[in-house]
């Protein structure tokens, strides 16, 4: 076959047309007639307990000795998989007891009355209004939620312990060793921690999310109350209105959300 310029241009033209229409057809093919699936959504559990600003009131008049506090501490430590480490310096504490002179250092004096002097006080993270730990954390592993709860994202903690140095209440513990072998009964509903992360009380955020009160509240027979500090009608506000309460080291300006009736 003899190739003329004319026949070459014909073939070239048809080829160009064919190549050019393919993408245009593709666009038409993908646009009409195809229904997109609705986007997935995330939401809160309907039963979740919410507040504008969570707070806690501990009625220390209802406690008389360390035995009264034990079941409360046990309840907390059990559901959060807290290990029992043999070395006291490695102890992990979310909720624990201490005496007046250590808890209320700025109020302590030699002649404080007998009941207070020997009374064990429950101490925990104060879920401060202006938490020093959150400012100190370099990875934002510790953060304050909109509802006032100071939480930890264990995934992000690098174990630098700046938060432990920053916290004026000593509310944080560091996992110097793998806690797994020291957990008596594992609660499958809550993860454990690994070596090298800091941990502390989380105000039972995982329980509030499914409509349950914090474990310590449930175990306290009414001695501990939690509620919304921003709601004048709430139970905690009623307790604060009708009783004289103190907070730990308020002059530091951290604004702790745990109140003690003494």
């Amino acid at each position, binding site marked *: 076959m003899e190739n003329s310029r004319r026949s070459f241009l014909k073939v070239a033209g048809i080829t160009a047309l064919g190549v050019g229409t393919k993408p245009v057809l593709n666009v038409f093919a993908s646009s009409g007639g195809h229904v997109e699936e*609705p986007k*997935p959504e*995330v939401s809160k559990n309907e039963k979740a307990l919410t507040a504008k600003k969570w707070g806690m009131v501990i009625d220390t008049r209802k406690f008389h000795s360390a035995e009264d506090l034990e079941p409360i501490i046990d309840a907390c430590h059990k559901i959060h998989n807290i290990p029992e480490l043999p070395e006291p310096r490695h102890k992990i504490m979310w909720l624990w007891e201490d005496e007046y002179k250590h808890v209320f250092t700025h109020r302590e004096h030699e002649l404080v009355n007998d009941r207070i002097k020997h009374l064990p006080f429950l101490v925990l993270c104060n879920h401060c209004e202006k938490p020093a730990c959150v400012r100190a954390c370099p990875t934002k592993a510790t953060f304050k939620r909109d509802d006032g709860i100071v939480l930890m994202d264990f995934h992000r903690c690098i174990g630098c312990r700046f938060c432990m140095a920053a916290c004026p209440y000593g509310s944080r513990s560091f996992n110097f060793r793998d806690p797994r072998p020291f957990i008596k009964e*594992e609660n499958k509903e809550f*993860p454990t921690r*690994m070596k090298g992360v800091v941990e502390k009380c989380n105000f039972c955020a995982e329980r509030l*999310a499914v409509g349950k009160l914090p474990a310590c509240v449930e175990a306290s027979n009414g001695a501990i109350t939690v509620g919304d500090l921003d709601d004048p009608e709430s139970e905690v506000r009623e307790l604060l209105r009708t009783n004289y309460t103190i907070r730990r080291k308020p002059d530091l300006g951290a604004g702790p959300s745990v109140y003690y009736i003494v």
Partner: protein
Amino acid sequence: MYDKNKIVAGLVIFIAIVTFPFWYNLGNASSAPEPKLSEKAKVAKECVMPKESIKSEHMQVLDLWRDTVVRDANRIYKSGSGKTFNMSLSTGEESCMGCHESKAEFCDKCHNYASVNPYCWDCHIAPKEKPKENK
């Protein structure tokens, strides 16, 4: 060329040694493992996303979920098809492991093959493996 025989022989031996790993393992390549679905997962039929997306994106999904749950306190996931799930790796019936009941049969199959070691299980408690029947 001088010493042609010696050079050729040497070259043949050299190439044989260099390519040894290739022809020694020829045909021995194991096929990619398929994760084994638990009975529960087979019954449920659908996951949080279509199978292909969950295969390629489950790590991003888990990463996103942990931020959503821990930081925003949103724990309920409603998939495109309208089914709701508990956004959790290892806690509760509607979590990942609530349905995919065996870590060894589901997660580890591919992770071991691909030699990836995610640190999920340093903290999250894996469901108890059921003992194998014929052992």
